[in-house]
């Protein structure tokens, strides 16, 4: 006996069904609304409250004025220069921290004695706020670029270093033992097992550091700078150019989001095997 399964759905003879397309679009719109609805409502609320005078428009200007200030700043090249110098400071410090933190962390995580000896001093440095040390760095390096980059470097180094050490230490010993049973040499085991297993933990450190880098950037630029987004926020406030101040703040938020987005993309590429959502 055979069963016949008939498709009861009616198919349009002309290519894809318009209704199906519409349904898909509606579903996608719902998805976007679920993700960003609250954010959009926040901005809409701000704008309406500002226009109607519910919020003091001198402190919270309507969004179109902030947009105007942003556009003017970018068109005149003023904010572009600020973005450039800020990116340079944060980027330089971040990449220096990565270049030192990851190799050092991999090394320290591997060798118990080194990790044990360095851990107390690391904990002390980590718990000492980088901002508290900024005056020290200024004394040592002057008020120029060097001290700014260094304070950001200092603050970003520790999350990367500690995450890397943690990642290496938490590698499943059973996997290492498995590699050994196949006769893998120490270096091979490190390259083929320890390193890939540490990547997710290292990325946690990288993303934490990227956020810290921007945080410290603003603080450093608010003291003794004459350029940069952090300076612009302060400067605009002094001069009561509130829309410009918000424009700079939104740019900073945008930079943070962009940095995180780049790292998430990179992580997805490197950790395709991992289902964990970020």
């Amino acid at each position, binding site marked *: 006996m055979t069963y016949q399964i008939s498709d009861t759905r009616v198919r349009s003879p002309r290519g894809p069904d318009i209704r199906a397309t519409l349904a898909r679009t509606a579903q996608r719109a719902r998805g976007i609304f679920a993700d960003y609805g609250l954010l959009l409502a926040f901005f809409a609320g701000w704008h309406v409250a500002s226009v109607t005078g519910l919020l003091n428009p001198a402190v919270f200007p309507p969004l179109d004025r902030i947009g105007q200030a942003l556009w003017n700043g970018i068109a005149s090249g003023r904010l572009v220069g600020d973005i450039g110098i800020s990116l340079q400071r944060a980027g330089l410090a971040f990449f220096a921290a990565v270049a030192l933190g990851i190799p050092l962390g991999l090394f320290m995580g591997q060798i118990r004695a080194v990790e044990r000896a360095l851990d107390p001093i690391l904990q002390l440095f980590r718990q000492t706020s980088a901002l508290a040390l900024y005056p020290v760095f200024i004394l040592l390096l002057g008020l120029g670029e060097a001290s700014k980059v260094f304070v950001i470097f200092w603050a970003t180094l520790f999350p990367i270093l500690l995450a890397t050490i943690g990642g290496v230490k938490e590698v499943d010993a*059973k*996997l290492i*033992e*498995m*590699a*050994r*049973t*196949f*006769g*893998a*040499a120490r270096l*091979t*085991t490190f390259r*083929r*097992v320890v390193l*890939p*297993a540490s*990547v997710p933990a290292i990325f946690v450190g990288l993303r934490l550091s990227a956020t810290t880098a921007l945080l410290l950037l603003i603080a450093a630029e608010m003291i003794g700078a004459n350029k940069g987004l952090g300076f612009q926020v302060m400067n605009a406030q002094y001069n009561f150019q509130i829309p410009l101040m918000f424009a700079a703040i939104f740019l900073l938020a945008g930079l943070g989001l962009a940095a995180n987005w780049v790292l998430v993309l990179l992580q997805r590429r490197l*950790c395709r*095997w*991992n*289902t964990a959502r970020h």
Partner: protein
Amino acid sequence: MTLVQTQAKGEVTIRDLTKSFPLDGETLTVLKGINLDIRGGESLAIVGASGSGKTTLLRVLAGLEEPDTGDVLTDGAPVHGLGRERAVIFQEPRLLPWLTVLDNVAFGLEVQGVPKPEAAERARRYIRLVGLAEFEAAWPRQLSGGMAQRVGIARALTVQPEILLLDEPLGALDAMTKMTMQEELTRIWHEEKVTMVLVTHDLEEAIFLADRVLVLPGTKGDAIRLIDVDLPRPRDRNDTGFVGYRRQLMAEFGLH
């Protein structure tokens, strides 16, 4: 022209082996004066109550633990540490989650310096052998427990060991999968002609797979016992002979 007589490879000789561990300031002797000859190509199961040292014995054979006294020899050569003639299959598959099934199976060969294309080629052969040809590109997280363990078995086989050491390899699987895998292991052992040393707490599994069953003494300190399983293969778990062996083994542990 003279032909060299090829001996059965994969012989293991254990002489006066003793192994103890420090425990709360005292010494706990888990293996005491073990003597055993494992024939090349045979399938030997090691059973014993928990704490009898069956896993320790396997780890010593693997070279993961050094014995306190005594020697282990494979094909007449003393064993010091790990060796390429031996491969270990653990209770957990121990797959590398960032590698596909194919790359996991090729891993053993690759760390031994076999070029990648050749390693992949040889890995494919064993992936077919364990029946996972369609899953070559899958990630470990996509596999069921039984499938993951097959990958682990294939990985151990690709390095073409003479001696396969299995530490409760099916212990974490459900009853049905376990029985299927026992049949698979019999088939693989038969096709690959390796010496198989299997640690298990499952007496039925021991009778199903082994030519001989080694019963390790408990803490009472009796001598070890060897039971020949004289049953034709493929074995039938409901066969009267099989049931007889099960009764005999259970009696060893005071069970009915």
